[in-house]
């Protein structure tokens, strides 16, 4: 632990601290402090999440907010100064809401600052990458035990996974979905008409075509080539009734748990191209690509589409901002029954129809297996067109769960709960951290009966 603590030693750091840094303005004593980096994450969805969570917090909490001026990669000086500013206000609780701030480093700085004084309860919003940082969390375990810490996960299965890493299980874990800005994403028949027209002239999408839409990073993490494969078969078996539109930039990140992150720039585009070029020309003409779109156009495309599809099996899939936005636009979804995606079933329940249908996923000795049949069935079910009325209802149901206000209410409930003292991390987390420390922990890929299953079994359907 002590590597981090030592790095943050005040005497060493004091010399490094820039005098020009803007100080956090903390005047009111005894309120909650929300810590958020001023520079949002390079991950687009994480940046949106931080922004929306921040809005949700400030809706109900009259909290003091601390902005960090610099990305924290610069070192411990920033953190220590921030921790000192926070300490001086004697806050009742401290809330960490974004993934730019390395929570474990910031907490180390807080412990140094508070020394023997008791720390206020700490609330940490957890992102999908939590499992990649287990070693760092373990490094501060002993000091975490001196306080109560509450983890907020974006989905039920992420909470289940985190619970497996904690001695007290889910006692200090709550589910709080990431909010969607519903002023940006909403259902509008007029928009649907307008964007359908645009897609007809640009890609030849006809009125009676069923338009499948994927938005997000086009990456191996999102299993895009498999999606193309499945849609190819769907198009062939349905005489071309379907068209697929993929929207987003190409991304070359690999899968840290299985193959590392070492892909070269442009390599995923080549993989995608190969996959597209292997299709028969008439099928290829029904698969379209648009790069990153602004929010207004994205909203238009969600409205124009008929089904949102994603076959992601990525281990960071703790929620799913794109499906959440799609649902707020009244767009039914077909998703893998995996990780945070499965939580969208709540919207189905709220709305009373099967607006989110899941593709079966199994973990076998061969790896994670997706059922093509199940995907096909789900898409054909959803293709029985959703009327405007039904879409409007779906949009409303999604807003009731994912709007900034809805999430703010959830936050209020969670913060009313009493957090028990932190008891420590489980042996499973230690085993995972050990596996992570040797580089790529699961080079054979996801396998049943493996350590992977003990952890990510939480992302699978119980049934």
């Amino acid at each position, binding site marked *: 632990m002590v590597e981090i603590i030592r790095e943050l030693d005040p005497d060493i750091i004091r010399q490094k601290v820039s005098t020009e840094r803007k100080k956090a303005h903390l005047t009111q004593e005894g309120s909650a402090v929300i810590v958020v980096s001023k*520079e949002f994450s*390079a991950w*687009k969805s994480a940046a949106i999440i931080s922004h929306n969570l921040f809005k949700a917090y400030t809706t109900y909490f009259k909290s003091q907010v601390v902005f960090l001026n610099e*990305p924290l990669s610069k070192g411990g000086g920033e953190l220590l100064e921030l921790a000192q500013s926070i300490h001086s206000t004697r806050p009742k609780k401290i809330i960490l809401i974004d993934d730019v701030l390395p929570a474990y480093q910031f907490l180390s700085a807080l412990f140094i600052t508070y020394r023997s004084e008791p720390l206020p309860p700490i609330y940490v919003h957890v992102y999908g990458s939590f499992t990649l940082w287990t070693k760092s969390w373990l490094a501060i375990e002993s000091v975490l035990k001196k306080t109560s810490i509450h983890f907020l996960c974006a989905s039920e299965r992420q909470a289940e996974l985190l619970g497996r890493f904690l001695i007290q299980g889910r006692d200090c874990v709550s589910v709080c979905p990431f909010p969607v800005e519903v002023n940006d994403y909403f259902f509008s028949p007029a928009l649907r008409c307008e964007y359908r027209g645009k897609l007809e002239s640009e890609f030849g999408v006809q009125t009676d075509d069923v338009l499948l839409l994927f938005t997000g990073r086009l990456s*191996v993490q999102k*299993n895009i*080539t*498999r999606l193309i494969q499945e849609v190819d078969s769907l198009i062939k078996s349905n005489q071309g009734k379907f068209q697929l539109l993929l929207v987003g*930039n*190409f991304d*070359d990140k*690999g*899968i840290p748990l*299985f*193959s590392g992150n070492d*892909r*070269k*720039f*442009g*390599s995923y*585009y*080549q*993989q995608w*191209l*190969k996959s597209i070029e292997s299709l028969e020309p008439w099928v290829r003409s029904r698969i379209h*690509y648009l*790069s*990153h779109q602004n929010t207004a156009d994205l909203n238009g495309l969600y409205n124009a589409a008929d089904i949102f599809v994603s076959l992601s*099996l990525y281990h960071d899939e703790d929620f799913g901002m794109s499906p959440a936005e799609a649902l707020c636009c009244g767009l039914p979804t077909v998703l893998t029954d995996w990780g945070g995606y499965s939580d969208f079933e709540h919207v189905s329940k709220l709305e009373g129809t099967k607006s989110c249908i899941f593709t079966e996923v199994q973990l076998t000795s061969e*790896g*994670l297996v997706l059922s093509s049949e199940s995907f096909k069935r789900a898409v054909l079910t959803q293709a029985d067109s959703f009327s405007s009325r039904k879409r409007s209802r779906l949009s409303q149901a999604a807003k009731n769960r994912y709007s900034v206000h809805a999430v703010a209410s959830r936050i209020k409930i969670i913060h009313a709960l009493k957090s028990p003292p932190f008891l420590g991390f489980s042996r499973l987390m230690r085993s995972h951290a050990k596996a992570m420390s040797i580089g790529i922990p699961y080079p054979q*890929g996801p396998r049943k009966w493996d350590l992977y299953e003990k952890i990510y079994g939480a992302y699978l359907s119980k049934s």
Partner: protein
Amino acid sequence: MKEWWQHPKDMRGVLNLVRKDHSVEMITRFLWPVANDYYSKLNPIFLYQIHDLGLFSYAPNWLLRDGLVGLLWFFKKNPKPPPKWKSCLLVHSSLVRYVPPLWRKFVGSYRLKTQVSSCLERRCLLLTGLVTEAFCSLESLNVQIEKIAAHLDSAGKRKKKVFSFLLVKPNVLGGDECSQFVCEYLLKIQKVFGPEISPINWNQWLRLESFQEFDIVDFNDYTVCADSFLYHYALSLRGALFAESPRRQDLDFDVGEYQSLSPYHGLEVCYEIPKEKWPEYPSETFIENKKYRKIGINRSSVNEQRVFPWSRSFVNWTQTL
């Protein structure tokens, strides 16, 4: 069948075999980020990464990202292809005339091709490059910015907002003080584009989801790098090349094979340059040139900070070509 998360075999390829020692690290660091790796079936590399010519036998095509100095250095070390040589080396279209006749049978050419054209509606101009003499000399900068200024004036595009991603690098060639060079460089830019230039940093660059509003300018005289990663990055996100003329005479090959690198850009490749298209090689003058013999090119005559494996005088000489 491959699993969804696996790299396709050909993506890992032979590039893992290239040299990764300290001297390569030094050059790569110096040229960061313009020399950052990217993937292409054409195996883009810098010649300084290759110690063993045998490596070239692993793939049929190799795209040389080097500028003039790297190329001349390589051809000086290897005046003719080794026996049984089969691979095709692709040289940037502005540099093919420096390929010695003995190598020409095995050399093709490439040039950048974008599907997106620069247009009046693009509101921003993004100036990129490394602020160091090895990357773009002041003389070359002058020529380039005058052309840009003339183009901006003629097209009435003076209203474009100007951004810069210009990274100051140490002077690795010796000679003038680095700070003096940087001052002159930046003053020249300011003189043409005015004081309202907004600098962006690497994090901001990476966070740009689209370069749709940007015309991109690469201040580069192709001395050490003819194929900038920054171009590939920006063009792959819908950036456009600013209408500029290259410093050296481009090879005029007819439309070659298009190798897509992104939905919006790629490389046009000519694997076999027809005999009549080859520009005249100024070799006779070279070989007789005493300076060429005198300066030599060996690893002992390194530049001041020992970044590049060639000498300052060698670089000076290439600038006169």
